[in-house]
């Protein structure tokens, strides 16, 4: 093999792997990207049923209902619009009414959002960024306001925590 053909082989191999990587990225981009929507966006723009997206906002106070067989229903709101959500599974420990939540799933024809993933924050003072931004856009959220929610959390702990047994 001459020097020239060796170089050619090397460049061809680089090009092939690069093209493969770019092709994979582009095809994955078109198929597996999930958009974030606030309840207001869902209400105004409408999302076709069957499209996967992330819905984020606050869990509406008083909306949490536990059904049979680990099904839970709750409403996600940005105080402007509200979307009803149904989910089967265990809720995260920091899931609370009145607190931020991000859910992933798709709308059913009736307008109910069927979630297969529910993400809550991992820290008392941490608000999912998408939720904070969406609420800021609605003018309903100020930086640092998350700390005020401590009281609500205590009230809810009674329903979830070990104290309920006393």
């Amino acid at each position, binding site marked *: *093999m001459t*020097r020239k053909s*060796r*170089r050619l*082989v*090397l460049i061809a*191999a*680089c090009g092939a*792997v*690069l093209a*493969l*990587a770019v092709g*994979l*990225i582009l*095809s*994955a*981009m078109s*198929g*597996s*990207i*999930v*958009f*974030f929507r606030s309840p207001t966006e869902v209400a105004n723009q409408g999302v076709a049923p069957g499209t996967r997206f*992330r819905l984020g906002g606050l869990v509406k106070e008083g909306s949490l209902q*536990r059904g*049979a*067989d*680990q099904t839970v229903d709750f409403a996600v709101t940005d105080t402007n619009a509200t979307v009803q959500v149904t989910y*089967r*599974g*265990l*809720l995260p*420990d*920091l899931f609370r009414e009145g607190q931020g939540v*991000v859910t*992933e799933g798709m709308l059913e024809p009736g307008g109910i959002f069927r979630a297969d993933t529910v993400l809550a924050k*991992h*820290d*008392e*003072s*941490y608000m*999912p*960024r*998408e939720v904070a*931004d969406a609420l800021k856009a609605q003018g309903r959220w100020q930086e640092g306001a998350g700390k005020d929610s*401590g009281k609500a*959390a*205590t009230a809810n*702990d009674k329903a*979830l*925590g*070990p*104290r*309920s*047994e006393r």
Partner: protein
Amino acid sequence: MLVEVGHFALALALALSLVQAVMPIWAARTGDPALRQVATPAALGAFACVLFAFAALTYAHATSDFSVQNVVENSHTTKPFLYKLSGVWGNHEGSMLLWILILTLFGALVAVAHDSVPPVLRAHTLSVQGLITFVFVLFIITTSNPFTRATPAPLEGNDLNPLLQDVGLAVHPPLLYVGYVGFSITFAFAAAALIEGRIDAVWARAVRPWTLVAWSFLTLGIAMGSYWAYYELGWGGWWFWDPVENASLMPWIAGTALLHSTVVMEKRDALKVWTVLLSILTFSLSLLGTFIVRSGLLTSVHTFATDPTRGVFILGILVLFIGGSLTLFAWRAPLLRQGGLFAPISREGALVMNNLFLVAACATVLVGTLYPLLLEMATGEKISVGPPFFNMTFVPLAVPLLLIVPFGQTLAWKRGDALAAAQRLFAALALALAVGLATLALTWGGPVLAPVGIGLGAYLVVGSALEIITRARGYGSNRTSAPGLVWRRAIGLPRSAWGTALAHGGVGIVVLGIAAQGWATEGLATLKPGETLATGPYVATLERVSPRSGPNYEETAAILTVRDRNGNAVGAVDTGKRFYPSRRMTVTESGLLTVGASQVYASLGEVHPDGTIGLRLYYKPLVLLIWLGAVVMALGGAVSLTDRRMRVGAPTRARTKSLPPNAVPAE
């Protein structure tokens, strides 16, 4: 008082690292070797100072000194002692101090290492390392000082986030940081080579042990983090393609590529410029990871409490080092003498393919991690890039890479014979195919890709074992099949051969573990005591729900008995909800029952006043192989590190001129 002295030591470290950074460069300009030698004591001094500062902070945490803001925010008198210690780095400021401690430790090790690093190269490397230390110490002193006092001092602290109150915190960050920060040394070596405008096999040999150390620790750190997330978050997953996980995976992939390209450089004096570029990229990705974790730009389970000034400062560091090193590269790399080209079918050809696939895989992870950020900046549209994206991009690139692993090992340097290599691998290929088909037949009707993965894993494990056996049996007239002789020869093989086989075999074990997750099952139910939930081959019975109390929490535990389908008891498992009054926070503790390498995983949901509970139960076949494989990989790195050629210098024709009068030749 000790806190102030610690603070002062940190300031002293800032000054010493500046001396360490400036003196060697000045020495090169004035040609004064005495100035150059200042770098060594400066590096040792900086390490001693940071160690003292770290010890002071640890003391403050251990004694619950609530006059220190950092302790107030992250500690509590009732917190168990182990978590008081690990809590030192369970927060932004303290973990940055640990980061810097490891950075200066590596600087000190380079300064005292008795190896064949030419003194000029060593001095320049220490200089670059000093600059990194200087910038990071400046960062922590100005924006994230762990020694800030709290006035007035409160009587009690806020406690550590309960999710972090786990042995995982004691182990995962230190391992990960040794890995992350270890690549700063290869970065410093690369920058030093560029400053000198000279690079050769001596450089490759000098860099290799540091790359191996960093890579092995990063492997362990990532694996430990994965296991911790698996049992602590209660979702049963072992990898989430979370931005922060990606942030640690990217330097690992680039570091793996670097590990392989330095071999080519050392043996064949080729791929020099590429290796220098990889060294720069690997540490740049480590810095990018630090930025991602601490800036709060991306939503992640790891997010620290964020502060915009820190993000801007780290962005500045990122621009300084990545931009600076790439500029230096563009300016000086043409000076480096290029090595020759080589045949595509050869060991080095296979290693180039390894680098190509690894870099492409790394690029897909980078795109998937940063694309949401860039899109949001450009259009304001918020998206999330989740596991489907990475499964569609990363996996198709990883599979061909894994296929060439045993193949590349078998090829000879310079000019390989593909057919002969395939013949030697025939046993591995046949066995892998048999294992895959047998698995498919046994699990007929189940997932199809999982048996393929099992076959691939078997191919890697057998291929690695075969490599050792083939080499021990010898070639041509030396060939033997007497077991005693083969055994003695196998023992006598270079440690690096064993290291390679172990690391590649470890990859195979990981692949086996991942593939087996195709048969994982899960069940979800509301249970009363006495009721059962079945998943996979096991049935769990809820025995009782009872309260327990720990040192700083109250727990409601569900105690379960696990039986197989025939009703024979396998073991007991308990899962609970822990309530931490200090943070008013509830955390689920998942329960694990290990059967061989498989696990039954229980996670408790809501507990209702009438004694019923929500329960999720997973069956995870062979899941432990994922982390055991990673440990085997790291072990391979460690064995490779004990290779004779790590201790004996490379032939060093080129450096005789630059020997100072009092230097002792390494050979």
